[in-house]
């Protein structure tokens, strides 16, 4: 089982060597990219980092246990596609730029200032406390999500800024039909059930794609994100050393809740927890100090009778639950509902899959639920899956119906050929006809021969 | 169908254990009050508990209003009260006398499994038989973990005869293998206590005198079908210093209780599945031996405390060869192997320890095997609870000496008493460092080594 790489890695791999090398000049970027790598890749990088000369691949492969060969090869190719390792064939050595910068990052030397220049303490305006930052980040983030979830329900929640709206539209999470207000798409529904960390990276990835089009310097954008991820929560940093693109980013990131500034023109900014946990995989995201009363990441109790008790007063969580639960009562800190066929159907129609519902329920299960094994009642899990299967009674495929063969021999010849090509979806010997899919085009010339 | 008597029995067992805990506290209080409890006093306490032993039924014990001791805190939560309660319990356990108790560490045990038709009863799920096999496996694994130099043999009682299922062996895998196949052990017929005890006794008769001999009987039947007088067998077991413990699954039988009482073993009737397991696992730790022989004591103690003839044994601690070393022949199986252990005296290679060297006859044990039991011998001294703030020197650290957890700054009202520190500080009498209650428990239960003084 190969670990799933971080969402940013494929994006980085698609960049040119030149871009990456420029990115690797900054120690903070090296550190952040290093953290995004899988555990095996990290160990490989570290093992090579302090070697002055390159290593023959056979020496390195000597460390690998036979069963791990495949994973090791995969890790090497990931690294070489990131241009961290010079090339997969030949001797193993780190990219010299990466090596220098990463060494600087680990030893804390160098003069790049890539970890953010702290602002001079300001006596008049002390920096916002961590709680304040958390509150700010949470409010911003939930505004976005809440806007998405309640679009089309007739409610009118606070609108996020136009930049955010544009990004949502660009990323295909929301769609506008000829000037009508934005509507959430099925991708958007799926997005809502992701973990906050994945959501954040999904959006940032879109932002990066957009930055390319907006002619922003991708290296600056990326390195600014990485710099943010290495900053200290609750500190203020100066904007003075930032590049042009980076200054332009300040406004966008403020809208997403990644950074906080007293005034848009302020010369200083503070990263929020959303930003500082960018490169950690299981962050205590949008902060523990929220409005919700229950424990942070577990608030759902699901019973075998399909009833669901959600200990939350957070409108966003309620709204997300409302996607696939038919809510019955609301109390100050508790929402009660039940999973019904109709509610799940509604969610499925929105493009949410059964697995997403189940994984959402699992990841937000109340600590009391965690004592159960299996965590969710099997009946409910199975039923949700069955409801999904109900929708899939018909499977459609485009193709051609081949019929009216003149002789049995003709029919069999064509059918066998089609079977060789693995395009036969259905056949009926008695009626001398079969249905072939579209996927393989060569069937057409073959038919001509017949 | 467990009769009512059975229930009563359990309760009595239970109250016994309560009493013994109270007893322990009494002893400790004596220690505190008068400096040192003399042996005689301890003895008297012991005697008292012995007499209570036979009378104190639950309905005779004084009426306790346990719920009144639970109090809500300001927030109306019971959590603090429950925590307090648990901490008290743990602490009480730790305060038990910490003097080195001699335990017989080289143990020999025969597990007597009832394989009579009564074991097919379904009053325990899935059946008594399946449950017994399952627990027996767990028991064997746990037993070898705690008694690494011990040996276990398995004997079955089936169709009126004793049946040797597994030979005495020190290898847990071998013992487990002997009871792995349930089809070979299919219960049938009547059990015979006498036959199987005789068989177990004879299999232990050759053992050196310094090792303990024990029989653990898991008995589901209410009858036994014996060829002769079982009391003679019992007497011969007493003479051979075999300790018999019985876990009965159905009800108490007089003969079973006699077997246990006369030989100094434990007797218990399992109420339910969980209780069955508890009773069985109580037999895992090595039985404590009275350090001094007291022939004048009661009949039961007299037999138990008879001086176990101790002996000095020569043992070798081997060097382990890794699986990358050049292969060579082992002396035990004459197979070419890389890994193995080298006898320190003759440098022969053996496959596994503990064993006797096939060349020079030296007993080869891995020293960690021996060391596993040392914490019984050198327990960490009990930490003293710091009772008031006056006892804390002004420059004392504010955090636990072991785990650096910060201490409470002000004493709490709910804590205190029962050897509990209101400040959550427990001080090592040796090195005068303070520890938090979690570390106190952890150090005494698991690490057995004070992080302050390193002893």
């Amino acid at each position, binding site marked *: 089982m190969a670990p799933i790489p971080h969402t940013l890695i494929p994006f980085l791999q698609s960049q040119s060597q030149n871009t990456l090398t420029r990115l690797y000049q900054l120690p903070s970027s090296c550190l952040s990219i290093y953290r995004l790598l899988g555990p095996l890749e990290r160990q490989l990088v570290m093992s090579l980092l302090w070697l002055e000369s390159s290593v023959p691949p056979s020496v390195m492969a000597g460390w690998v246990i036979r069963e791990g060969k495949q994973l090791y090869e995969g890790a090497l190719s990931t690294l070489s596609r990131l241009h961290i390792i010079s090339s997969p064939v030949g001797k193993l050595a780190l990219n010299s730029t990466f090596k220098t910068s990463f060494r600087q990052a680990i*030893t804390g030397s160098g003069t790049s200032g890539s970890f953010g220049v702290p602002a001079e303490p300001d006596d008049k305006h002390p920096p916002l406390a961590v709680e304040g930052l958390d509150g700010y980040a949470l409010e911003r983030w939930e505004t976005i999500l809440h806007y998405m979830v309640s679009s089309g329900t007739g409610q009118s929640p606070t609108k996020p800024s136009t930049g955010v709206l544009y990004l949502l539209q660009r990323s295909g999470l929301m769609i506008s039909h000829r000037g009508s207000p934005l509507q959430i798409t099925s991708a958007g529904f799926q997005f809502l059930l992701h973990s906050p960390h994945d959501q954040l990276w999904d959006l940032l990835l879109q932002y990066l794609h957009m930055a390319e089009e907006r002619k922003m310097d991708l290296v600056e954008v990326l390195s600014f994100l990485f710099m943010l991820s*290495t900053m200290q929560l609750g500190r203020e940093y100066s904007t003075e050393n930032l590049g042009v693109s980076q200054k332009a980013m300040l406004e966008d990131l403020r809208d997403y809740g990644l950074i906080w500034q007293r005034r848009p023109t302020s010369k200083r900014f503070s990263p929020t927890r959303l930003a500082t946990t960018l490169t950690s995989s299981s962050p205590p995201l949008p902060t523990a100090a929220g409005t919700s009363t229950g424990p942070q990441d577990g608030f759902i109790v699901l019973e075998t009778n399909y009833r669901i008790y959600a200990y939350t007063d957070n409108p966003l969580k309620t709204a997300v639950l409302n996607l696939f639960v038919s809510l019955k009562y609301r109390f100050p800190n508790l929402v009660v509902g039940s999973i019904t066929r109709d509610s799940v159907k509604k969610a499925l129609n929105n493009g949410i899959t059964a697995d997403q519902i189940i994984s959402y329920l699992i990841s937000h299960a109340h600590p009391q639920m965690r004592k159960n094994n299996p965590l969710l009642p099997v009946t409910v899990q199975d039923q949700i899956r069955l409801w999904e299967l109900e929708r899939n009674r018909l499977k459609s495929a485009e193709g051609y119906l081949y019929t009216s063969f003149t002789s049995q021999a003709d029919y069999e010849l064509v059918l066998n050929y089609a079977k060789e090509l693995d395009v036969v979806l259905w056949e009926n010997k008695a009626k001398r006809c079969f249905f072939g899919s579209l996927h393989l085009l060569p069937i057409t010339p073959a038919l001509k021969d017949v | 169908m467990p009769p009512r008597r059975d229930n009563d029995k359990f309760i009595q067992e239970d109250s016994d254990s309560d009493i013994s805990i109270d007893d322990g506290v009494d002893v400790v209080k004596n220690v505190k009050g008068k400096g040192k409890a003399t042996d005689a006093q301890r003895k008297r306490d012991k005697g008292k508990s012995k007499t209570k032993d036979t009378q104190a039924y639950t309905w005779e014990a004084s009426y306790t209003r346990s719920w009144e001791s639970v109090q809500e805190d300001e927030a109306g939560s019971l959590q603090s009260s429950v925590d307090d309660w648990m901490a008290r319990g743990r602490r009480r356990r730790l305060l038990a006398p910490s003097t080195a108790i001699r335990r017989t560490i080289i143990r020999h045990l025969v597990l007597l499994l009832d394989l009579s038709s009564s074991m097919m009863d379904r009053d325990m799920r899935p059946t008594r038989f399946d449950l017994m096999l399952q627990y027996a496996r767990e028991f064997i694994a746990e037993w070898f973990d705690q008694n690494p130099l011990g040996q276990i043999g398995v004997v079955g009682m089936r169709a009126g005869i004793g049946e040797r299922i597994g030979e005495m062996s020190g290898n847990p895998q071998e013992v487990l293998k002997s009871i792995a196949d349930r089809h070979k052990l299919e219960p049938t017929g009547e059990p015979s206590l006498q036959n199987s005890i005789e068989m177990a006794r004879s299999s232990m008769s050759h053992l050196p005198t310094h090792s303990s001999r024990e029989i653990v009987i898991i008995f589901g039947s209410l009858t036994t079908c014996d060829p002769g007088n079982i009391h003679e067998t019992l007497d011969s077991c007493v003479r051979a210093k075999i300790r018999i413990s019985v876990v009965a699954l159905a009800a108490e039988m007089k003969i079973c209780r006699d077997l246990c009482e006369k030989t100094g073993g434990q007797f218990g009737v399992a109420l339910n599945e969980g209780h069955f397991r508890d009773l069985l696992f109580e037999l895992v730790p090595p039985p404590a031996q009275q350090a001094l022989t007291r022939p004048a004591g009661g009949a039961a103690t007299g037999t138990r405390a008879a001086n176990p003839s101790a*002996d000095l044994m020569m043992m070798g601690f081997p060097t382990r060869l890794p699986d990358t070393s050049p292969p060579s022949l082992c002396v035990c199986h004459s197979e070419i192997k890389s890994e193995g252990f080298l006898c320190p005296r003759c*440098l022969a290679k053996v496959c596994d320890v503990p064993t006797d060297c096939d060349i020079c006859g030296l007993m080869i044990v891995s020293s960690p095997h021996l060391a*596993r039991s040392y914490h019984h*011998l050198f327990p960490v001294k009990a930490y003293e609870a710091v009772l008031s703030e006056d006892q804390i020197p002004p420059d004392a650290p504010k955090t636990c000496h072991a785990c650096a957890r910060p201490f409470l700054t002000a004493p709490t009202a709910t804590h205190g008493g029962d050897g509990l520190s209101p400040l959550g500080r427990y001080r090592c009498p040796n090195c005068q460092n303070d520890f938090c209650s979690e570390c106190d428990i*952890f150090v005494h239960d698991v690490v057995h080594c004070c*992080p302050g003084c390193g002893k």
Partner: protein
Amino acid sequence: MDDENGSHLSVVIDLSPAQWHSSAQPPPDNPYPLPLSIFLAQLLTFLNAHIASKHENTLAVFGAFPGKSVMLYSSTDPPPQTQVIDANSYPPFKLVDSTIVTRVMEEFDEQAEITDEAPNSLVSALAKALCYVNRVTLPTTTTSSKQAEGRDPTILPDPRILVLSVSPDLSTSYIPIMNAIFSAQKLKVTIDVCQVYGPESVFLQQAAHLTGGSYIFLERRDALLQYLIMSFLSPPSIRKILSVPTQDKIDFRAACFCHKNIVDIGFVCSVCLSIFCQPVPVCSTCRTKFPMKTLQRLNAARPMLPASTASPSRAASSAPQARPSTTPATPKTNGSSAAPPGGLPHSGTIGNGTARTASANESGV
């Protein structure tokens, strides 16, 4: 390859001034001198690498000084608000480095005032590390909300302990070390050992072996950092793919209770399993009297051990160093515990074994 929650690393550093002094001596006696300052620099790099690997990785560092063990750093402590941020370094690295260096210097200053040399407290540092691991892996209900932090308490953060030792085995610490090993086994903690300087450590070898860790006797001390990173950085999950060096052979010798000698053949009390290096009439631990017959038999079993031969060796071993190899591994016979490669080890004769037993009797104090 579950890597969600980061891993915990506790490092126990042996900071015995005398040993570090001799470790820094120039080449003739010491082919690869390694002064403490360089060691610390490389160690800090290693620690940074551990923190760098995962945002959630936690770290605790314990120092073992003579007679005293100190927690030098713990990542659960809240960082001081006064910390100065340097634009060129990642703040957590800076914090680790400065905290450890300051604490070590403080302790050495304190040590300077104490003149009498106390035995090294590696054991108590190890016990502290275990208590700390116990604390971080099992957050209790009573602890503050800071620890809960939305993390599932049932998932252990994969704890490891790395012992960096420079001192020879202290035979008095045999039992405490064994106890520590067993509790590490119970907590499922891996103990890795790197013997940076000094002789091979029998006890630490056993510690690494019994807890599934890796023991490295550092030969090329100038390559310390590379050793550390290649062998000890990877959490156990990665070790299933990238192997780490294991021991070539493990010495299962024990220390006797009477003279704290490290013995390979000992005499064991059958009641309490105390180990003695020579037949004794009464067990010093449980006061069991042993039968005269046995004593005579055992004494007779050591014919090559007349009392006279024991005395010169006793004088010879009066040096304070209780080296683990006090057994004079007579090089001419194949008496050294390493089997000659290729040769069938059990071809050894019984005779030379008894000569080795004699050595158990030396250094009687």
